[in-house]
């Protein structure tokens, strides 16, 4: 049967129970299916199955013009909105030689970091929901609503605004944007201690996550993980520092890393990233000119030849795109490099030997988003 792929050798064993976690399971954050072999509560086998959200992104995008590709990329990592648009925009700008004004770069970076906070807030809420606490979910979603309100006033949509374009952004900022963001950052800084009380300092969270699902540095590098998962294993790799883009060279921030590599470390790193995002946003609020150009000069019909790989550090890790142009107005080939997809590789490493309850905590600490994994 199709439901036992990868588990044929163990089917005869009577001391092992095989359960299907997903595609409809509250803790899989979407439509992941993990076939798990259980001995009591201990996991003996774990085979992740993906493809329940395969939407054929790359082939559809290859039949669209470059301008039409951008809104499709929005739908990949749907939790972090505009972050997905940036790799395509950067690659095409490189190939077509489009100049981007400084102010546009700063606006892009501000939206990028706003969506990073929004994404980490969604992660925090759902991870705590997986651990059994209901209330932080509601708090984080309210804070996320504020971000989405700010985004909507400028970009026109809440989640998937299609805001970046070649040469800058589509619209100028809303008059109250700077005030709104400053107020939101104040609000968030007031709320962060509450989140620390409810999540990081909670002894039950400690009991559930410390020492659980340890991912060693070597294994993390070997599996190609990136983002907070990699940094929690002690590798200080961040595309924002390693291959800076947009306004990141002009702001100061640190890369929080932890050597523990366990679930708690991944929680902790995401918390610190929120603080770093707040820091970046505060600097950009100071630096960004209030008025000025928000969009460079881009031709109405882009005809591109050449190939280019560009990557950005989105909320889940290195989100890259490889664009090949054959001189036409449509890409000859587009290949996305999803961060969450690579992070999902470690599921068998971390699950096997853990308790079933630990598996839930580990999965939530990986923070998968299936639009990006299945594409």
């Amino acid at each position, binding site marked *: 049967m199709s439901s036992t792929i990868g588990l044929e050798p163990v089917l005869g064993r009577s001391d092992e129970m095989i359960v299907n976690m997903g595609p409809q399971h509250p803790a899989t954050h979407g439509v992941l299916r993990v076939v798990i072999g259980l001995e009591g509560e201990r996991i003996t086998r774990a085979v992740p199955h993906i493809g329940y959200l395969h939407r054929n992104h790359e082939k559809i995008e290859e039949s*669209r013009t470059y*301008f*039409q*590709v951008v*809104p*499709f990329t*929005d*739908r990949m990592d749907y939790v972090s909105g505009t972050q997905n648009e940036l790799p395509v925009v950067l690659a095409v700008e490189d190939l077509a030689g489009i100049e981007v004004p400084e102010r546009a770069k700063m606006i892009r970076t501000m939206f990028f970091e706003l969506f990073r906070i929004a994404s980490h807030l969604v992660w925090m809420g759902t991870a705590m929901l997986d651990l059994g606490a209901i*209330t932080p979910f509601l708090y984080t979603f*309210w804070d996320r609503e504020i971000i989405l309100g700010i985004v*909507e*006033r*400028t*970009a*026109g*949509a809440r989640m*998937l605004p*299609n805001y970046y374009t070649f040469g800058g952004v*589509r*619209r*100028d*900022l*809303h*008059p109250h944007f700077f005030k709104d963001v400053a107020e939101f950052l104040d609000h968030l800084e007031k709320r962060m201690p*509450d989140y620390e*009380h*409810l999540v990081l*300092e*909670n*002894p*039950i969270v400690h009991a559930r996550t410390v020492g659980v699902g340890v991912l060693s540095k070597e294994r993390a590098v070997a599996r190609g993980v990136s983002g907070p998962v990699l940094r929690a294993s002690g590798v200080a790799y961040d595309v924002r520092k390693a291959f800076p883009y947009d306004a990141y060279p002009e702001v100061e921030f640190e890369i929080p890393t932890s050597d523990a590599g366990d679930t708690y470390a991944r929680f902790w790193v995401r918390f610190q990233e929120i603080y770093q995002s707040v820091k970046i946003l505060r600097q950009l609020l100071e630096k960004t000119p*209030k*008025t000025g150009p*928000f969009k460079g000069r881009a031709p109405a019909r882009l005809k591109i030849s050449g190939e280019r790989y560009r990557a950005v550090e989105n909320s889940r890790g290195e989100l890259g795109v490889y664009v090949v142009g054959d001189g036409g107005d449509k890409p000859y080939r587009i290949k996305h490099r999803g961060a969450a997809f690579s992070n999902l590789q470690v599921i068998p490493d971390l699950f096997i030997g853990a308790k079933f309850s630990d598996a839930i905590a580990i999965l939530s600490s990986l923070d998968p988003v299936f639009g990006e994994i299945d594409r």
Partner: protein
Amino acid sequence: MSLLNEVWQAVKAIGTGMATVHKRVYEEAPTEFYPYVELDLPPVSVQSLALVENEDGTERCIVCLQCERACPSQVISIERHRNPEGKGFLIDRFDIDLVNCMYCSACVEACPVSSIVTIQDFELSTYDLHTLKADIDFLHEQARRSKKWYSPKLGVEIRTEDGRIEKAPPEMQPGGLAELLKPAAEEEES
């Protein structure tokens, strides 16, 4: 003693968490009473599409097919014929499949005359999917129904009480920062 201290720390942390949660009981919730209270969406918010007519009832659309070409979701289908009197084209059919639309507002960006616009009416849920296949009457009705709409070329426009179409004040505009700052800067100079 370290064990006792550990227990005390744990109890204290749980107590702090519980106090954090309980604090909210005394705060007013930020809930919007949506169906009872009308939602105030920003004027640039993309919730639906509409086709604006001029004040005198003539068509603003020049049937240039730019929106049809720009649409990433390929939901716009237009048929036209050459105007027998004068120049330009006339509309035979102008359909937007609002079911499959991805509300990216690429068509609005592409429109050279700001005829196709975004509006804030999101209450389009239906028992019957056929009601969402928007023809030209539907799109005109959407525009007639809405008080304000947005297009990048003309910015936010509003319909006044007596049916005239006007440009909205700068604080409603997305790029209105420059205009908004101008009077203040002049005052400082003088």
